[in-house]
């Protein structure tokens, strides 16, 4: 018979008392784990969406809204193309890539599409003025330990339009088809097509992204400008900062540089989801606070009641030689077991809840996060031990003469 056996046998003797005293902790941990799992996965989803959108910053005409742009940026408002040169010449820290675009409606074999003119990256290196600009000896942003879009071989294929929002080479008579356009028009690589009165060869087809890009046809910016007779204008300029922090710093600098344009971060696209994430994150902290208060108070009260119930037993144990430290450990260990068990069960319930209802609740797939689970169980155990400390200490201070008193 030792401390552990005494704790275990006492717990087994009073199963309902165990359940009721640890219920608050169990529910609190379950709620906390479920909310945190959904929040973390939702945040990851936002981050993934941001990454898939590519550009950190958009420079739009003053009157255009971000929604207009992503609804196909065909609102008729434009910016002078020289803004691209101004951005490049300014040599702002953290600018990694600049992609001007001009979009307009067009018909491809009877199919309504959005024709988007883009400037391939090779055009930048061909411009003498830009070669001397700071872009090619760019000032690195302090936060950019790792570039968000390192140039790679993939940039040389049309698919890079999906991954990095730019393309290395695109001849003036070449086009790249979005997935929907390719599917519905039945054109494929190497085909010759008529568009806005011009003749183009299909360079490639993009894979499906689930965005408006699927219904776009990409061509050289200057070709689109010529065919549309729009002059040297663009619908939007996408700027990729080397990291999210850089994007944040760049917005005020670009706004100052281009006062007639509207400069926004792409994160505003997912603002609603970010808002929901913030709410859930706040809720999880509220749950944590409630867990500490209600769970801790509930367990402290249960242990204090247990000490009162067992006064005679404590007195007897002291009479037969148990030290005050032994008595204190008896109750602390009981609390530790309760916290550990309630925390573990709560964690499993929370995990199952998050995995099962996460997709319906927040539209994200939820996978278990072992670190979070271990932290939640650890926190519950620590909370239980801390809550039991005072009643356990009171138990250790009880008068052993209680053993002589009548019940």
């Amino acid at each position, binding site marked *: *018979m030792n401390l552990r056996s005494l704790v275990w046998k006492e717990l087994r003797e009073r199963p309902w008392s165990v359940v009721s005293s640890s219920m608050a902790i169990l529910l609190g941990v379950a709620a906390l784990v479920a909310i945190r799992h959904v929040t973390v996965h939702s945040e990851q989803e936002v981050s993934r969406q941001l990454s898939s959108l590519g550009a950190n910053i958009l420079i739009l005409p003053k009157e255009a809204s971000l929604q207009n742009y992503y609804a196909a940026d065909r609102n008729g408002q434009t910016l002078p193309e020289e803004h691209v040169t101004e951005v490049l010449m300014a040599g702002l820290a953290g600018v990694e890539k600049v992609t001007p675009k001009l979009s307009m409606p067009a018909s491809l074999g009877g199919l309504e599409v959005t024709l988007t003119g883009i400037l391939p990256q090779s055009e930048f290196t061909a411009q003498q003025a830009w070669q001397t600009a700071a872009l090619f000896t760019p000032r690195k942003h302090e936060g950019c330990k790792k570039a968000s879009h390192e140039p790679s071989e993939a940039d040389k294929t049309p698919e890079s339009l999906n991954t990095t929002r730019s393309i290395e080479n695109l001849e003036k008579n070449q086009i790249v088809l979005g997935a929907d356009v390719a599917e519905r028009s039945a054109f494929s690589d190497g085909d010759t097509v008529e568009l806005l009165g011009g003749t183009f060869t299909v360079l490639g087809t993009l894979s499906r992204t689930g965005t408006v890009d699927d219904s776009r046809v990409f061509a050289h910016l200057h070709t689109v400008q010529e065919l549309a007779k729009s002059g040297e204008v663009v619908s939007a300029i996408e700027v990729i900062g080397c990291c999210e922090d850089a994007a944040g710093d760049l917005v005020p600098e670009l706004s100052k540089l281009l006062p007639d344009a509207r400069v926004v971060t792409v994160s505003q696209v997912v603002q609603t989801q970010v808002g929901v994430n913030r709410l859930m994150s706040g809720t999880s902290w509220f749950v944590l606070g409630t867990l500490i208060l209600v769970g801790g108070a509930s367990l402290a009260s249960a242990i204090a009641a247990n000490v009162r119930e067992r006064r005679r037993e404590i007195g007897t144990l002291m*009479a037969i*030689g*148990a030290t005050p430290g032994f008595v204190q450990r008896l109750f602390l260990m009981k609390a530790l077991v309760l916290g550990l068990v309630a925390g573990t069960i709560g964690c499993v319930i929370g995990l199952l809840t998050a995995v099962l209802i996460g997709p319906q609740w927040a539209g994200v797939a939820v996978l278990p996060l072992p670190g979070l689970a271990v932290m939640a169980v650890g926190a519950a155990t620590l909370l239980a031990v801390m809550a039991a400390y005072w009643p356990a200490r009171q138990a250790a201070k009880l008068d052993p003469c209680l*053993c002589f008193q*009548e*019940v």
Partner: protein
Amino acid sequence: MIRLENVKRIYTRHGQTVTALQCENLCISAGEYVAVIGPSGSGKSTLLSLLGGMLSPSSGRVWLDETSIYEQSVVARSTIRRERMGFVFQTFNLIPYLTALENVQVPLGLNGVSLPDQTARATAMLQRFGLADRLNHKPSEMSVGQQQRVALARTLVNDPQIILADEPTGNLDPTSREVVLKAFDMCHEEGRTIITVTHDATAAARAKRRLVLNEGQISEELSSFAKVA
């Protein structure tokens, strides 16, 4: 030897001071069998608590051989109780969620005895009290007499030199009372010191020395074994 030297225990309740026990000098030699008798509220439990190192005197000293026990730390007093004393209670004070065997193992566990030794010694002690078939019964599954025998087994399992008993036969039928008193006789024969507080005249008669407590004052009923100064 146990000695009380100018011991006074005072309680203050509702602003009133009550002297629960006052004793200038009381010696109990090793191996003595002493019964303490007296009416309710006379200070019997206070005396037992003082002797057991569980209640500090308001003044004076309690000696166990050459050790003034209240000048020791709380932990040291726990060790003294664990290693040298055994307690028998009127209501047995068995731990309700433990079996007979486990109850008897508790003092051994507190003394750091290994689990196999605990089981062997506790089983042997329960067999000695005729409880071999009740090892795995909980107190609620045993008769009152059996419970007191389990309590006696728990008291003796650590082989204490001193046994302090509080009304050990108070709740027992005559048969069970005889079992307890025989156990005390046997302990006395083995040379242990027994101090029992009792209302039971039969139990008191078995002791070799009787002390009378009245309003906190100790007097000797038979003066042939020790003196009360």
